[in-house]
């Protein structure tokens, strides 16, 4: 079973590498779309169908937005890196961070054995409470929906605020009436 996850993750990594290193900007955006659909597949095989549906729809919209940004621009072929010294420094920093950061995963629980509900532990964790009492307390069969809309709905309210603010920023940046009014 984990071989499937290795294959999908390698697919995503290869798509991301092509997206980073290719010359044309439009094909780079399309490779990002391939990485996103691979992510949707891996969510589906990780038993998270809610996130798979959301990811695959969001990915379509993100592709439309990104292609709108890149198409019909004159110079979509700007590639190449920054100055040589800063490139070297960045690569070294990224490599050192990777080598140090992989040590962190030794402290994680093993893959496939989540820390929340081991049978030997008797203490009540939050996830165990949601799984055992979620249907009785909220009436929703989908535990994820009961978490995001009942137990932790305050998070969702904050998320709605963040989405509202970012959309507001985008529309304010792209409006065209204001400049004309200032002129007249």
């Amino acid at each position: 079973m984990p071989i499937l996850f290795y294959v999908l993750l390698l697919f995503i990594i290869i798509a991301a590498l092509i997206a980073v290193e290719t010359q044309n900007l439009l094909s780079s955006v399309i490779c990002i779309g391939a990485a996103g659909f691979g992510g949707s597949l891996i969510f589906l095989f990780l038993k998270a169908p809610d996130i798979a549906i959301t990811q695959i729809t969001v990915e379509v919209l993100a592709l439309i937005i990104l292609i709108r940004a890149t198409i019909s621009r004159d110079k979509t072929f700007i590639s190449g890196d920054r100055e040589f010294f800063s490139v070297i420094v960045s690569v070294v920093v990224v490599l050192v961070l990777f080598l140090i950061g992989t040590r962190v995963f030794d402290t994680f629980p093993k893959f496939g054995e989540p820390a929340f509900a081991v049978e030997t532990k008797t203490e009540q964790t939050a996830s165990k409470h949601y799984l055992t009492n979620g249907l009785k307390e909220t009436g929703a069969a989908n535990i994820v929906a009961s978490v995001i809309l009942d137990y932790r709905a305050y998070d969702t309210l904050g998320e709605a605020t963040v989405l509202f603010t970012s959309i507001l920023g985008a529309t304010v940046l792209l409006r065209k009436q204001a400049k004309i009014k200032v002129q007249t």
Partner: protein
Amino acid sequence: MLYALCFLLFMIGLYCALVKKNMVRIVLGIVIMEYAVNILLIMIGFRIGGEAPILSPPQGLPLKTSLQSVDPLPQALVLTAIVISLGSLALMVSICIRTYQRYGTFDITQIRRLRG
């Protein structure tokens, strides 16, 4: 090992955001980092042989499923994070379009006034 591959994906995104000159490509690097973080969070809650945290009527008894299901809490966190990433992507793309319209290029080394 799977966690390390997710971290490698994150580092590819970080490299792209740090090194590249094109503005849209920096945005793509941030998008790759978001993918890596989402996949890592879901992987922590995965249980081999577990089922999706959605109860069906014959399955009925919720008490039994707490030892058979995957962790629902990271899924709830990631579900909101995906939609937020779309909103922030729209904001970043609109900033890129405005900058292109003002300066005529996506190259951030050509945009002098961005250098503080």
